């Protein structure tokens, strides 16, 4: 096999060892500490064109499911989100589990300043959870181009 210069061997060995350690940490934190990418299952579950007759997306809403724990069932559409902004209110310290799907094209779902950031595809449901400690108005915006009104596609979550 090829001969490799000694210094280069040290450089490559060190580099690859660091890489292995890094990937191990990344993998462990993803799979054992719940820091995973969004949507841990894969469902192919909904029919985008029939959302209005598919529970729970026929009635997008935010509901309390435990002590300071909420489930937000939401739909994204060109160019906005359901339910209406006046319903998106939770008390500080709440954890919100978002389930989002699209009734038309691909959209984004991002809350700047948090790690909430995921793609919303028609036909698929994406999930992400976040604990809102600080009271305030949280901007929820679409970060995937979806048409002429893309820059106007946003809503707000109010943490009281």
């Amino acid at each position, binding site marked *: 096999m090829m001969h490799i210069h000694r210094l*280069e061997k040290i450089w490559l060995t060190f580099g*690859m060892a660091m*890489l292995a350690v890094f990937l191990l940490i990344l993998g462990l934190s993803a799979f054992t500490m719940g820091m995973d990418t*969004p949507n841990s299952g894969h469902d192919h579950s909904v029919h985008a064109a029939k959302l209005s007759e598919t529970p729970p997306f026929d009635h997008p809403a935010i509901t309390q499911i435990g002590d300071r724990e909420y489930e937000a069932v939401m739909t994204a559409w060109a160019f906005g989100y359901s339910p209406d902004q006046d319903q998106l209110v939770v008390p500080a310290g709440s954890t919100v589990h978002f389930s989002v799907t699209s009734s038309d*094209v*691909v959209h984004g779902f991002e809350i700047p300043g948090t790690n909430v*950031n995921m*793609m919303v*595809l028609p*036909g698929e449901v994406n999930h992400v959870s976040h604990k809102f400690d600080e009271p305030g108005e949280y901007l929820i915006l679409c970060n995937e181009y979806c048409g002429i009104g893309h820059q106007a596609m946003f809503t707000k979550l109010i943490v009281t």
Partner: protein
Amino acid sequence: MNPTFDRKDGRLVLAHLLFAYVALLLGGVCGMLQSMVKSGSITLPANIGYYELLTAHGVLMALVFTTFFIIGFLYSGISRTLGGSLTGVSRSLGWIGFTLMAAGTVLGVIMILLNKATVLYTFYAPLKASPWFYIALVLLVVGSWLSGYGIFAQYRTWRKANTGKLSPLLAFMAVVTMLLWQIATLGVAATVLLQFIPWSFGWVETINVLLSRTLFWYFGHPLVYFWLMPAYMCWYVIVPKIIGGKIYSDALARLAFILLLLFSIPVGFHHQLMEPGIAPFWKFLQVVLTFMVIVPSLITAFSLFATFELNGRARGATGLFGWLKKLPWKDVRFFAPFMGMLVFIPAGAGGIINASNQMNAVVHNTLWVTGHFHLTVATSVALTFFGIGYWLIPVVTGRRLTKRLNNLGIIQVVTWCIGMLFMSGSMHITGLFGDPRRTDYTTYNDSPESILWMPYHVAMAVGGIILFISLIVLLAAVVGLLLAPRGVEEYPIGEVIDTAEKTPKLFERWGLWIGVSAALILIAYTIPLADMITGGTGSPGYKFW
């Protein structure tokens, strides 16, 4: 070797380069306008939409400028190193490829300007453009395939005439790059031919969105290596000659290219980390494969700096960094690609962050990502290409890079770096605050977050204007080169250091590498793809613009 470049081949190369520069200039106009719109400095005249501009910019820059320049450069390399001129077959294939790609570009740009294809360069379904836009993409891709066959044909002819000999490094690299391209474009060809075209003509009602995205990104990541590998060719083979040094190791260079081929394709999921419908295991597997490209990157960094240092020491440099002083800083043929290499260090580090599985949530679809690829492709790769153009145009036209043109080139490179520092720098910072990419001017009803982003958008616009000035300087330099005094300019091709070890024959066992590549692709994609094909629901098309 004959000092003059084959005239007929020269015309083919020049056609590609000039087409690329025109695309770059038009794309640059769009880019500057985008940055001004985003900062709220201007509003576009009634008929032009921001997203129309952005589609044109993405297509002209990422697909047209790069592909034309690369194919022109690769053809120059094989003409030069594989026999001194192209065979009739290769040259014809080159011209047919050029014609198809040019036709595709013109058709695509017309569709975009008519506002019939405002779907951005990634054309994500179920936004539905005119079928002619997708046909334009087919022409572009099929043209590039034919050009690739021309390169393979030239290589085969040379191998037959030189049995048992090691192929020239530059030609080997050109073949690997084109091989990567052939394998990678299968994904985009599949989605366009089997999904988008039947659907956009109305022959089928719906499209499987997740499948189309996955096939796109199967292509989309190796696409960036298709841009990068020609830049590496310059760094490995051309730059050592320009600085008067030698190539550190032929074998390591080939190893790096083979590793890039293997590990840049089965990794598209790192663009879909935030997406539903793909199990986390498969995402993570592809993340691990993604990180394997760090190995050839480490090899490259080592080899390049070894070349610089050994060369400097041979010229009497002392101390840890004395060799830096021995580099030809005032030679644009060196300065441009060297700045490209330098920028690639932070750019690569940014890429590692993007691909880090769950960490992607921090930056996904924010301007950070846009900032990232304006460092990688629009600086590292683009500067290297500019550097190549400064000697390649004179080489193929039989003219000389004069001192004045060289200095103009240096100014162009410096302004490009300054412009990018402003534009890409502020994109990175504001992206970390969550500022979304691909978005027209907006403050989300005066939301406080987005008001804070605006100063960065202003800095982006300043950068955009400086970049455009750099393009004007480039235009002047290219025109200058076309009118430069006749003469002979060197095609710089480095030689390998005498003490380097022999290159193993293994590297040219193409069947083996294609086999390994196919196996990795099958491992990474079979199960998730099968799942998407059987499980997905279809979407009708939408025209929301």
